């Protein structure tokens, strides 16, 4: 018997019962689509986390004000800021290998210009901030160290804020009012687009941190300080020096817990990507289970269909089908269902990944490996779960099969 005949036989048999064939395929379709989409979304998330952390700046170290346990209550990081402006200045002056540093002061506020107003995030930064984040100017330029020292009222606008307040006109040289105080716009930043959480990174106003503390927040300490080392090799020593300087300044005894955290950008990156990786594996595994369930669905349907089609098998045997022909037919049926379902599932998975990436605004990556894996896996499922029912069918006795009611 030619193999093309087996194809014809199996395809005709599947066509005789389109509903059953479709439902069997559905299990595999959903399983494969889930695996493809989940892995794509997970991988995309990982890339996005990595790139957003990379934006903190090269060779950077993040000093976060810690959980000072005051009155026995322990807050999360930054909950009770312990980093003072004296700490900041000491870091800049005393720690060797520090190239740049900037503190972090944030406040949401209303910004006005003319009759336009917007709510945005005011970011109190140092003169190095723009440089550390390798952010370029579209127009104008940075504020100076003197501006920071004097807490002058100057501002740098993100593209979104500028457009909302001034439309297409240039904002540089214009006045914006933040909590009713007038600030002169000195620069306009190049647009950066969405962050991974879907927030608009261009919806920001930079002012000298000193101005922000005096006029906006009224605080005297920072949530965090970003420090940039001169080179990658110096990141380690900078971290050590920072820690010992701060322990000394905060009078923390040996063995006592620090009231700050020092993390290199590298460490943060590794932590975050490993979390994202774990998430991807978890999502993939859950999706994998649904694929397995789809495979069991195939076996279930094939088993039921062997019983239901006993007479058909008898007829085929009576007109000359051999046990092997029947085995092959059922196996091919199972593989066509699983591989067909797999292919449709891959398409659907691609679609879901596309839709998700369009919705959240970051790339999802359908990896060739996951496609190959899903395809091979669905074929294996077809053969594996199809074999037992096919064996059962091929072992039937023609007379008994024909007599079966």
């Amino acid at each position, binding site marked *: *018997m030619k193999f093309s005949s087996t194809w014809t036989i199996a395809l005709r048999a599947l066509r*005789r019962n389109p509903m059953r064939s479709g439902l069997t395929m559905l299990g595999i379709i959903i399983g494969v689509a889930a695996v493809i989409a989940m892995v794509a979304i997970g991988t995309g998330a990982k890339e996005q986390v990595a790139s957003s952390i990379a934006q903190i700046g090269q060779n950077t170290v993040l000093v976060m004000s810690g959980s000072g346990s005051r009155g026995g209550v322990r807050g999360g990081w930054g909950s009770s800021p312990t980093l003072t402006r004296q700490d900041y200045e000491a870091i800049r002056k005393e720690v060797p290998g520090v190239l740049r540093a900037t503190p972090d002061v944030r406040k949401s506020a209303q910004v006005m210009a003319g009759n336009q107003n917007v709510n945005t995030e005011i970011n109190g930064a140092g003169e190095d901030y723009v440089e550390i984040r390798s952010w370029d100017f579209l127009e104008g330029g940075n504020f100076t160290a003197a501006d920071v020292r004097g807490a002058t009222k100057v501002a740098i606008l993100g593209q979104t804020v500028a457009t909302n307040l001034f439309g297409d006109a240039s904002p540089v040289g214009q006045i914006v009012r933040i909590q009713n105080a007038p600030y002169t716009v000195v620069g306009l930043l190049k647009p950066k687009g969405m962050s991974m959480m879907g927030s608009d990174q261009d919806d920001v106003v930079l002012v000298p941190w000193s101005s922000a503390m005096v006029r906006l927040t009224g605080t005297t300490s920072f949530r965090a300080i970003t420090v940039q080392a001169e080179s990658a090799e110096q990141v380690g020593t900078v971290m050590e020096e920072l820690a010992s300087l701060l322990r000394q300044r905060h009078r923390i005894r040996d063995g006592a817990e620090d009231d700050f955290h020092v993390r290199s950008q590298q460490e943060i990156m590794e932590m975050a990507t490993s979390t994202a990786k774990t998430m991807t594996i978890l999502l993939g595994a859950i999706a994998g289970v649904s694929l397995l369930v789809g495979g069991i669905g195939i076996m279930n349907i094939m088993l039921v269909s062997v019983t239901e089609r006993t007479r058909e098998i008898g*007829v085929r045997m009576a*007109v*000359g089908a*051999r046990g092997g*022909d029947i085995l092959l037919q059922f196996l091919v049926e199972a593989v066509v269902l699983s591989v067909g379902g797999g292919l449709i599932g891959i398409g659907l998975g691609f679609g879901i990944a596309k839709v998700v990436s369009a919705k959240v605004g970051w790339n999802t990556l359908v990896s060739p490996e996951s496609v190959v894996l899903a395809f091979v896996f669905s074929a294996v499922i077809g053969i594996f779960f199809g074999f037992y029912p096919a064996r059962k069918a091929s072992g039937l006795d023609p007379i008994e099969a*024909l007599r079966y009611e």
Partner: protein
Amino acid sequence: MDAKPVIQLESIEKVYQTGEVAVKAVRGISLSVRPGEFVAVMGASGSGKSTLMNLIGCLDRPTAGRYLLDGEEVGALTKSELSRVRNQRLGFVFQGFNLLSRTSALENVELPLLYSPHGHGRHELRKRSLAALEQVGLADRAEHHPSQLSGGQQQRVAIARALVNHPSLLLADEPTGNLDTRTSLEIMGIFQELNRQGMTILMVTHEPDIARYCLREITMRDGRIVDDRPVGDRLDAAKELARWRGPEEAP
């Protein structure tokens, strides 16, 4: 009558063992059928007719005895060689038609060709199947499904399926058992025509009237052949059919 026999049975026995009880369905049958014969197998219900047909049709193996098909010892063949024999040399027609549902008449007829060791191209499959349907007068119903055909038409499709691989022997177990008299006559007409063209036919029937269209009549009782004689007053199905039509359609 010196041609080599198509079927030669020597002391064939078949015992069904169901638990403790052994049923001797066929108890030592010796029979010889020559090419071109048209044999009716008669007998009461339970006398072993179907059992015998299944043995001759290579669907089942005898418990004892020798069976030569075209001079070849069938007992020595493997399961898959038996399948080949059924596919290439035998045509089987059942009382209950046994067509595949939700499958066109044409595809039903193609079935034995698909399992043929020769491997036919798509075009040839269709050509040969249509020719077989033509032979039973159903070429215009090729695309109909069994559920869209009458009982007689379904049986004709089954006959076309039995003929499509050009077998030398046609076996039929009560082919007219589910049909009315007139439709039975049509089926017998097809059989007589095939027999006239040289086909050897062995068929089981309950009805003495139907047996009269055959050439030889065998009667079974309790698993044995008790009578074997040529049909004396043979009928011609075409004539009978014409007579049947006469009073109905003349006025």
